[in-house]
């Protein structure tokens, strides 16, 4: 605290003592997030130890929910399936995004880059739910796609209710973000390294894999991690495009709440998901930045 002016001699050194002004700006976030974000999360942990007696939620300290959920084969299966779906979604999306972000970073003029970014940012913030509904109409058995393919005597292909369907949804969710994040790290790669590699006789593909990807690794890993986080927790794609068969953890939560009205058990699943995401996020950050350190 005391060294603030030492490290940042120009801004904010007059903030020696906490005054009303500082509190006015500092407190709203702390209060709001503590009350409406941290407290609910803490309550989630507490809730996992509560019990349901005669359909009534009862405060308790019982590990029955944990024992119950972990002893059920389908819960464990669903957990690993969701993990697998999330990982697959992240990898597929990263691979599909890479040539696109590469093109935007290296094969586009600044004006095209601006427009490209604009075209990626806009859909990321527009109703995912409706877009998935639209995909349903496109890929259903007698939907637009099969209609179109039928003209050429192909199909019909069964996409709705399959893993492919779910993946289409995942990619819809993550592709703009992954391209954006990959683009930002790729455009940060110093062109001189690329030219130096090619000058030393490194072929095109080898330049990409031995020079560009390692240099842009941080962004690529973070993009993949975000894709995983989004896919892992998504409810809409596996229900609407994957037809909930087989279920993911999100579907399991909704079912546990809706059918069993068993909030503590849903809380156990939710907590498992949060912990998994935390572990994945920290692992990814560790790898993303460790690699970078070696390279620079």
């Amino acid at each position, binding site marked *: 605290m005391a060294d603030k*002016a030492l490290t940042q001699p120009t801004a904010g*050194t007059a903030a020696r003592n906490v005054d009303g002004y500082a509190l006015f700006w500092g407190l709203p976030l702390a209060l709001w997030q503590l009350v409406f974000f941290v407290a609910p999360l803490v309550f989630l942990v507490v809730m996992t130890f509560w019990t349901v007696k005669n359909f009534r939620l009862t405060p308790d300290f019982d590990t029955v929910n944990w024992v119950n959920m972990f002893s059920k084969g389908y819960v464990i299966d669903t957990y690993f399936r969701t993990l697998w779906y999330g990982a697959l979604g992240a990898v597929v999306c990263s691979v599909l995004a890479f040539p696109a972000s590469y093109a935007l970073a290296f094969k586009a003029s600044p004006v095209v880059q601006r427009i490209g970014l604009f075209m990626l940012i806009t859909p990321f913030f527009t109703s995912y739910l409706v877009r998935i509904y639209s995909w349903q109409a496109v890929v259903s058995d007698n939907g637009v796609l099969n209609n179109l393919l039928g003209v050429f005597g192909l199909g019909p292909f069964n996409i709705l209710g399959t893993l492919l369907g779910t993946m289409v949804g995942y990619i819809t969710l993550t592709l703009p973000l992954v391209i954006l994040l990959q683009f930002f790290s790729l455009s940060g790669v110093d062109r001189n390294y690329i030219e130096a590699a090619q000058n030393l006789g490194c072929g095109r593909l080898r330049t990409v894999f031995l020079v560009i990807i390692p240099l842009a690794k941080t962004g690529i890993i973070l993009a993949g991690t975000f894709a995983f986080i989004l896919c892992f927790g998504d409810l809409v794609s596996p229900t609407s495009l994957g037809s909930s068969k087989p279920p993911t953890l999100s579907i399991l939560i909704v079912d546990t709440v809706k059918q069993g009205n068993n909030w503590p058990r849903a809380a156990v699943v939710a907590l498992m998901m949060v912990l998994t995401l935390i572990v994945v996020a920290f692992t990814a950050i560790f790898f993303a930045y460790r690699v970078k350190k070696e390279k620079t």
Partner: protein
Amino acid sequence: MSEALLVLDKVVKRFGEHTAVDGVDLQISKGEFLAIMGPSGCGKTTTLRMIAGLEQPSAGEIRLNGTRMNELKPWQRDTPLVWQNLALFPHLSVLKNVEFGLKMRNVAARERRERSMNWLERMGLAEYAGRNIAQLSGGERQRVAIARALVTEPEILLLDEPLSALDAHLRVRMQSEITQLQKQLGITFAYVTHNQSEAFAMASRVAIMNGGLIQQIGSPREVYRAPANHFVAEFVGSNNILSGTVTALEGGQVTVQTAWGSFNAPTPEPAPKTGDALELVVSADLVAVSDSAGAEGNVLSGELISEEFIGSIITLYIDIGDGIVFRAQKQQHELDALDYSSGRKLFASWRPEHTYVLPQI
């Protein structure tokens, strides 16, 4: 006797473990142009920021017109600062930038405009009043920053290396503009810089800082010719420093034995005793160079290792042994007769009365 306009009384500033300013005593009188000079990290900017109230002293007292200032917030004092990066408001026009200080003092809009326009005219910027800051050149921005600071007619103006972002030409021009302005206005200027020629060209008094302490205060000439200690001698000008031991004292002269010979110098006050260790300072511009021995006064010799031209001035670097490189600074034409190619043995000489004995500590 009444107190000086601004007084710093044993002012200390600590940032955590680090002491940036370590007990500065400083008096700035009305109407003087004081330069505070020192290497980066010496505490000069922190001192200035404490005067402006942007830092609060950890100990000591700052008084303006005899009134203690320590607890006053920056906005409660009238100590405008011209920032190193100018800190002009990019979202405001030139006129609005200049008006800012008056607006904060709730001066009526009309008067505000009039006074600001007067300043813009004075700085030759009247036609730029409506412009955006981004549309101005470096020198024009500089003038806007000065006008903005002076529009409230303060008693003292603080300047924090305001010329460091300008190119050499513009800098020299702005130096004389600022000096002129200060003379016309009679306002006190406190000017922080690490640039020696800037400080010496502009200021009536120079304070040299190092390690959070003021090492010496005096007129540029005093500081230049009679440095108070080793640091000042090394930091200011291009001085040669030779250390040795007193072997004799007679006739107002002291004889000092060094590794490079025995040299005479005027006896300083207080007089040293025989056997005392001393440092002699010889300003490079007072040294004569020749390729043969036999000059009068103090003479030493060494091997020429390099030379450096800056305009018509040439600096010769002579290796005199024991890791000391002796410098001699001459007008180029003075060396016409001399062959100064690298590797030659040269003799450097200077008059005993041009030798300055550093005060003993």
